[in-house]
């Protein structure tokens, strides 16, 4: 076993409370599958047989193989953590450190992507990297999002990511929020990597390959609580720090010992061979000066940037809607579940998904939409660009457009719903109209 997968599924989805109020984030239906299915499927596709899932008690109860609709080969090792006390991702990883024997692949449960995962892992292997991560071009969400008027605020903080000329080595990372006056780049980085491309508009997929010794480092440094927020920036900075450590700086000494002398950890032979290979090899990662490969740096961070392909992090309502739209392309199952009953005079677009045991009546048209399991749609209903979760009932003559209808909601007759979010188990009275975008979720 080369890599152990750790799936972080304990997040509360605080950026889309409208949806996570009733359904836990890992279980939110996307294309009629729970969100957590996507990362698990990603791992399964590349042959992972075991995965450690870190989640909360509530979610654990719901995580039955039946629900996950996996093929059943994966062994899920579910670890529960207490949500209280603000545990970060790094804390969570520290929590399961006893189970971690090798390098780890950490990913988040809200990742939906069709990345060829081996590209990230190959980078990790090829350069014997301390960390390799995945990024993707940021997608613009063009659709109108219920409850958000007008355009999204442009005030979002940009991430600046510096990569070297090959576009793989991660040299620099900063968030606009942390910059006081301008971007400061250390001279030592520029000397070693004279051509640096600074990119913005990238989405961090929150998928990291981490060396075993980084996990050990985490165990020893309890003050790091978030992987993305603290550990990764620290590693990126560490790449170019002097290996000579100040004696009082315990942290660094330990870190470098970890990085250099992994010998104690049983992989002694490998490391020795690796060092020898590097010494004997004439391969070098850079041109222009005579120093050894990687300039002798022990910490190396790499990033794989997806230029095309699907990559979403479902952590906002907008991303959720967008992910649902993309879902049919990612799922191989037939879009219309065999157990769904669809009457003949009904139009169901090829880009729509109809869940199990649905009943769709006559003269109904469904386009670019997802209809969850056990939902009932009566006559003369038009559904476009919408997401209907499980057990939704739509009475006759409704027109639903660009909306999200949560589980077990009932939409009364002739309702006209545009760009709305209807909370779970809500009833929309017959002949009611929710025309405006601002007409937002009413949760129970």
């Amino acid at each position, binding site marked *: 076993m080369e890599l152990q997968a750790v799936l972080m599924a304990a997040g509360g989805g605080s950026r889309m409370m409208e949806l996570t109020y009733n359904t836990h984030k890992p279980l939110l239906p996307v294309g009629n599958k729970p969100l957590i299915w996507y990362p698990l499927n990603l791992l399964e596709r590349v042959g992972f047989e075991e995965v450690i899932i870190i989640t909360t008690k509530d979610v654990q109860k719901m995580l039955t193989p039946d629900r996950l609709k996996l093929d059943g080969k994966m062994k899920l090792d579910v670890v529960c953590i207490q949500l209280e006390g603000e545990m970060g991702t790094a804390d969570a990883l520290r929590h399961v450190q006893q189970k971690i024997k090798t390098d780890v692949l950490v990913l988040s449960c809200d990742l939906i992507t069709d990345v060829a995962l081996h590209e990230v892992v190959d980078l990790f292997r090829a350069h014997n990297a301390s960390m390799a991560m995945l990024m993707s071009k940021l997608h613009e969400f063009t659709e109108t999002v219920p409850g958000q008027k007008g355009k999204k605020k442009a005030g979002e903080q940009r991430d600046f990511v*510096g990569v070297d000329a090959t576009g793989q080595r991660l040299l620099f990372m900063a968030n606009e929020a942390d910059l006081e006056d*301008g*971007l400061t*780049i*250390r*001279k*030592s980085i*520029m*000397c070693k*990597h*004279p*051509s*640096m*491309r*600074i*990119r*913005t*508009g990238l989405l961090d997929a929150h998928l990291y390959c981490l060396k075993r010794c980084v996990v050990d480092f985490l165990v020893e*440094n309890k*003050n*790091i609580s978030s992987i993305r927020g*603290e*550990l990764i920036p*620290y590693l990126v*900075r*560490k790449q*170019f*720090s*002097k290996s*000579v450590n*100040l004696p009082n*700086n315990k*942290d*660094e000494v330990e870190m470098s010992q970890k990085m250099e002398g992994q010998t104690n950890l049983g992989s002694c032979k490998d490391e020795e061979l690796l060092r020898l290979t590097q010494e004997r090899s004439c391969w070098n990662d850079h*041109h*222009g*000066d005579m120093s050894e490969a990687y300039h002798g740096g022990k910490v190396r961070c790499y990033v794989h940037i997806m230029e095309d392909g699907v990559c979403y992090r479902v952590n906002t309502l907008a991303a959720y809607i967008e992910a649902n739209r993309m879902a049919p392309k990612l799922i191989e199952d037939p879009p219309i579940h065999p157990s769904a009953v669809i009457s003949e005079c009904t139009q169901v677009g090829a880009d729509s998904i109809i869940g199990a045991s649905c009943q769709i009546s006559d003269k109904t048209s469904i386009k670019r939409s997802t209809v969850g399991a056990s939902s009932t749609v009566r006559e003369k209903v038009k559904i476009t660009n919408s997401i209907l979760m499980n057990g939704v009932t739509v009475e006759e003559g409704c027109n639903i457009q660009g909306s999200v209808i949560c589980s077990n909601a009932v939409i009364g007759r002739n309702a006209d719903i545009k760009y709305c979010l209807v909370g779970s188990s809500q009833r929309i009275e017959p002949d009611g109209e929710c025309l405006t975008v601002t007409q937002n979720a009413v949760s129970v």
Partner: protein
Amino acid sequence: FRLRVLSPPGPPKTAKQGRPGARRAAVDQDEEEQPLQAVLVADSFNRRFFPVTKDQPRALLPLANVAMIDYTLEFLTSTGVQETFVFCCWMSDKIKDHLAKSKWCRSNSSNTVHFITSDTYRSLGDVLRDVDAKALLRSDFILVYGDVVSSIDTPAKTGEEHLCDDYDLQRVFAGTSDEFEIRHDLLDCHISICSPQVAELFTDNFDYQTRNDFVRGILVNEEILGNQIHLHVAKDGYGARVSNLFMYDAVSSDMIRRWIYPITPESNFVDEEGKSCTHSRHNVYRGTGVSLGHGSQMEENVLIGQDTSIGAKGHISNSVIGANCIIGDNVILDRAYIWNNVHIADNVAIRQSVVCDGVEVKTGVILKEQCVLAFNAVVGPDVTLPEGTVVSLHHPDEEEEEQDEFLSDHAEAGHNKATKKDKANNSKELGTEGQGYIWKSSSLDHTKEDELAQSLWGLVLNPDPESDSESEASEGSDQPGSRTISPELDDIKVFQTEVQGTLQRGLEENIGCDNLVLEINSLKYAYNITLKEVMQILTRVVLEYPFFQEGADLSTSQYNTLLLPLLKGWAPVFKNYVKRAQDHLNCLASIEEFFLEHEAHWGALVLMSAYNLDILEEDGIMRWFSQEGTTDKSKLLRKNQGLLKFIQWLEEAEEYSEGD
């Protein structure tokens, strides 16, 4: 060796794609009809080659035995320039003479050279303003300095407007671009292709001195004016500006190693007699009439000019030797640049140094790295010049004198005295027969610090490794958790120290309380502090002040005697902040908090004096007193004898006034 690998033009720069505009296209059409023009600035307007350039302008300094301006003109001509305007300032006559004799001024030259001289040019900006004033240029032109060596093919065809700088960063920040590149591996070869507007822009912005000013100006104002700067990164070819001796060394050795092909030492492109030489193995070039002594070795990369004779058993490598030199026996030259008519006696060793025309080096002299012997200096015998020694016949002080030409005679007299003194001193360092003065690059004049800091050999060779590592260490030690401290707390702390500083200054400089209030108010806004916090902090600072003045161990009486005058002095400040009833309570709470920490010094005296100074009002004190302390300590505090007395007194006074 980095330089030759990285010869494309342009300093660090962010990638900015050229947006070919309509104007651009129109100009392209014109180009075919109009002769290509160039502006050659034969003056560097700086003193990086000082004191060498005191006797000869930089453009005429020999590089591989050919004056640098010849390389520039050759480059221009081979690019297809048909008309070149040479702007001279310093020693314009010499440049004129040189060019008049050269092939560029012959009737068959494809490149017509015009001279424009003026002593009033002080910068590139002046030159370009003059270009504009004289309306010399009709179309796009090439702008180069007289010390550019290049073999880049037809940069004109790139059609880009020209180069730039890292100021782009700012713009990209402001812009919407998703991606930009920072390069640290580019060399600016100072070849610019400018549209005629460039000259106009220099006129419009009379404060532009250098190209950097211009680039910065354009980049900042680009969006308003629609001017663009483009950059062409040459993938091959050679281009460099000999901007300091380090570059001189690098370009010379590249020349001998034939990196600037087709410009090579033996090609004799200047077409002058006596410049031809033969090329043999290991890049050894010999001019006509060179005589070599028995057993002298020319290892590799050596260029020897016409009629030079070299003694026996010498060892020469990576060096350039000019014409008519006489070099003695047992001489070791490595990376030495010996110009014309130099006499080097026996047993001399020279490493990575420049020896100018007419210098005499006596026997047994050793020149360590990075020495410069300027024109006609004499050194030796039997001395060793330490690293970085610069010797010139000109006295270092002359330079200043020249700058202030209005200095009166008596200054000169004084200066002469100094000269004599120095001369005596120098004999030890330069040898008994030595002539010249040692220029100390370390004795930086404040006014010229910028220029001298990069003097002669440039900074590149002496990077300060310590400062670099220091900054790295400090950055590296950046603890992962160091960011967790909330900024708010920090602000309050900073604010507190600022207030303390303000009050201290107030005491020292006797600043009025009104002004102190003003300063504290502005601090309040700067750190976003609420009024309540201001008062708390102010109280705290004032109460702590005696400790701050005299150290932490004060007896109570000492403390009180120190504090009372302070309170008195700053009473108006307090009054400004303590106005409403709630303020009084807050203030008292802060006082209480402070004395909870310093119980020993507690006494009613503080309250009393505050009351007497009208800082605190009776009602406030009474209300505070009646609030039961929440902790045992604060209860204890209220039971203080002195306080009880004071309260009692207050109560009595109240009754008395009521009764009255």
